[in-house]
C-alpha cells in the first residue's frame, strides 16, 4: 500500500508516517499544497491522507486536482474542523472517509486498510489471519470452515483487530472505534471487555486459536505470536 500524507504540522506528519510505515506500506509525505501538487502530478498513490488546512492552499483544491488526475486513488480527509459542512463537502468531492483530529493512529490504520480493500478489490477479497477468514463484502467470518455468528460490534471489533494485528491497542482506542464519541461513558471499558470475552469465546468454541492477548493495565493485542 502506497500512501501520501499531506499534513502541515511536522510532528503529526511524522507520527503518521512512522506509525504507518513498515510491512507492505510505503509512506510519502507533503507538508504544503505546493508539495502535494508536485507529488500528485508526478507519482501515483493508493491512498492520500489529506489535511484540509494547509498553509498555502485549501485541502479541497488538492482533492479536486487528485480526482482529475488520479481518480482511482482513495482519499481520507483529516481535519481539526469538526464541522458537518466540511465532512459533507469532502465526501461530495469524492473523499472516501473523514477523520477529525485528534484521532487514534490505529483508527487511521483501520480506516486506510478498509479504503484500500474497497478500492483494490471492491471489497470482494478475503482477509485471512491464522485460521480466521473474513469476507468483508458479506460480513461472513470463518474459523477454518466453521462459520461464526457474530454481532455487528463483534464483527467490527474483529476487523479492527485484524487491521491492527500485532499492535497494542488500548481499551480507549477500541471503545472509541466501536462507539465513537460516546465513549466518555464510564462503563465503556467494561463493555469492551464484554465484547472481547464474547468474541474470544466464539472463536475458541469452534476450535480457533486465541489470538487476543490481554495486556494488563492497557488493553489488547491481536497476534499469532505465542499461539500454538
Amino acid at each position, binding site marked *: 500500500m502506497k500512501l501520501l500524507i499531506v499534513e502541515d504540522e511536522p510532528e*503529526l506528519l511524522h*507520527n503518521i508516517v512512522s*506509525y504507518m510505515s513498515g510491512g507492505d506500506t510505503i509512506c510519502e509525505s507533503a507538508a504544503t499544497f505546493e508539495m502535494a501538487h508536485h507529488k500528485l502530478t508526478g507519482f501515483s498513490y493508493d491512498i492520500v491522507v489529506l489535511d484540509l488546512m494547509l498553509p498555502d492552499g485549501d485541502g479541497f483544491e488538492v482533492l479536486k486536482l487528485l480526482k482529475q488526475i488520479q481518480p482511482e486513488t482513495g482519499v481520507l480527509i483529516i481535519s481539526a474542523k469538526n464541522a458537518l459542512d466540511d465532512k459533507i463537502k469532502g465526501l461530495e468531492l469524492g473523499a472516501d472517509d473523514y477523520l477529525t483530529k485528534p484521532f487514534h493512529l490505529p483508527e487511521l490504520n483501520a480506516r486506510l486498510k478498509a479504503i484500500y480493500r474497497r478500492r483494490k478489490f471492491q471489497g470482494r477479497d478475503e482477509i485471512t489471519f491464522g485460521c480466521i477468514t473474513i469476507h468483508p463484502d458479506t460480513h461472513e467470518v470463518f474459523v477454518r470452515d466453521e462459520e461464526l455468528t457474530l454481532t455487528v460490534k463483534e464483527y467490527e471489533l474483529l476487523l479492527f483487530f485484524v487491521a491492527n494485528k500485532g499492535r497494542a491497542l488500548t481499551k480507549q482506542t477500541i471503545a472509541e472505534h466501536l462507539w465513537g464519541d460516546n465513549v466518555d461513558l464510564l462503563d465503556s471499558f467494561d463493555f469492551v471487555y464484554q465484547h472481547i470475552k464474547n468474541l474470544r469465546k466464539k472463536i475458541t468454541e469452534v476450535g480457533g486459536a486465541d489470538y487476543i492477548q490481554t495486556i494488563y493495565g492497557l488493553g489488547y493485542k491481536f497476534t499469532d505470536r505465542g499461539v500454538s
Partner: protein
Amino acid sequence: MNLLTKTTLFYLLISLVAFTLGGGVALRLIRTEVQKETDYSLRDSYRNARRAIKGGAPIEALNTRKVRIDSVPMHLVTDTSFVFADTLGPHPRLDHTEPYRKLTVTKVIDGQAYRFAIQDVFLELDDSYEVVVKIMTRLFLILGFILAGVMFFVSRFLLSPFQETLKRIRSFNVTQNQTPDFPETTTNEFEQLNAFIEQMMQQAQRDYRVLKEFSENASHEIQTPLAIARGKLEILLETPNLDERQLGLIHTTQEALGRLSKTSEALLLLTRIENQALLPREDTNLTEITNHSLRTFSELAELKGLSLSAKIDDDVKVLIDASLAEILVGNLLKNAVRHNINEGWIKLSLTQKMLTVQNTGEPPSRPTEQLFQRFQTNTSSGHSLGLGLAIVKKICDVHHFDLQYTYEKDVHTLIVTFTS
C-alpha cells in the same frame, strides 16, 4: 417612585414648612402694623378732640361711642403720658365682645384738666389668622401647580434623553457586535453620560470578543499538540518488550490526554454555540435523529442492564442545526445512561411540542438548575466532564427552547419544549 416625583414631593414638603413659618411671620407683621395704624388713628382722634375743646366746644358734644372725655380736678393730674392698652368691649351690633385698642391720657387744656379715653375696634385675632392661612394655602396651591407643570416639562423635554439612554442600556447585549446609537442631546451632562456608557459598552464587547476568541483559539490550538502527544504515545506502544509498569504509564497518560481533548472539544462547542455559529437554516427531522441516537445508545443501555423505551412521533420537524440536534438528543441520552442505577430504565418521548427524557437515578447532589452550569456534576459518576448538560442548556438557550429538569421519587425528568 421616580426621581422627579420624589424631588417634587420633597420640594413641596419643604415649601409646606416654609409657608407655615412664613405664615407665622406674616401674622406677626400684620398685627404689628395694624396696631401701629390703630394707635395712630387713636392719637388722631385725640388731637381732633383737643382741637375741638380749644375751639370752645362743650365736651358733652364731643363724646361718642368711641371717645369719652371727662373733666377732672387739677390736683388729680399726675401723669400726662399716653397709655395704650388692649381691652375687650361689646360688639356694636352682635352680642359678644371684641378686642379693642384703648388710649387713655390726661391733659390740661386752657387751665382745665381733661381725661381722654378713646377706643377703637382692633383687628380680630381670628380674622387675621384666617386671612394669613387663606393667602398661604392659595400660594401653596399655585406653587404646586407651577411645580407640576415644570416637572412635566422637565421629564418630557429635559430628561427625555436620559430615559432614552436608560432604554438603550436595558436592551444592551454584550454578546452582540454593535453598540446602540445614543440620540443627540444638548445637555452636557447627558452627553458625557452617553459618551461614557458607549465607551463602556464598547469596552465590554471588546473584552467579551477577546475572551471568546481566546477560548475558541485556545480550544482549537490545544487539539494539535494533543494529537501529536497521543500519536507519540501510540508509537511508543509499538516498542517491543515494554514492561507492565511502562505500559501502565502510557495508558494513564493517554487517558488523561483523551480527557483533556474531550474537555477542550466540549468547550469549543459551547463557544461556537454561544457565537451562534451554528444557527439553523432549515427544519431538521428530529424523528430521524432521535431514532439514530436511540440505536447508538440502546446497546450501551443494554450492556448496563437498563431498559430503554421510546415513543416517537413521526416526522417531528424543528428549526435547529442538524449537528446540534444530534448533540442535544445524544447528550440527554448519554446523561440518562450515565447517571442511572442498576436495573434502571430510560423513557424517551418525542412529539412536535416537546422532547422528554426520563430515567431512574440517584437523587441529585445539588439543586437541579445548578447541574446546567459548567463542570457541575454528580460526583458519584466518575469520568463525567460536567459539560453535557451545560451544552444542552446552551443549545436550548440559543434556540429559545424551554428546558426543565425535575427530580421526583427516584426519577429524573428532562423536558425540552420547542417553540414553534
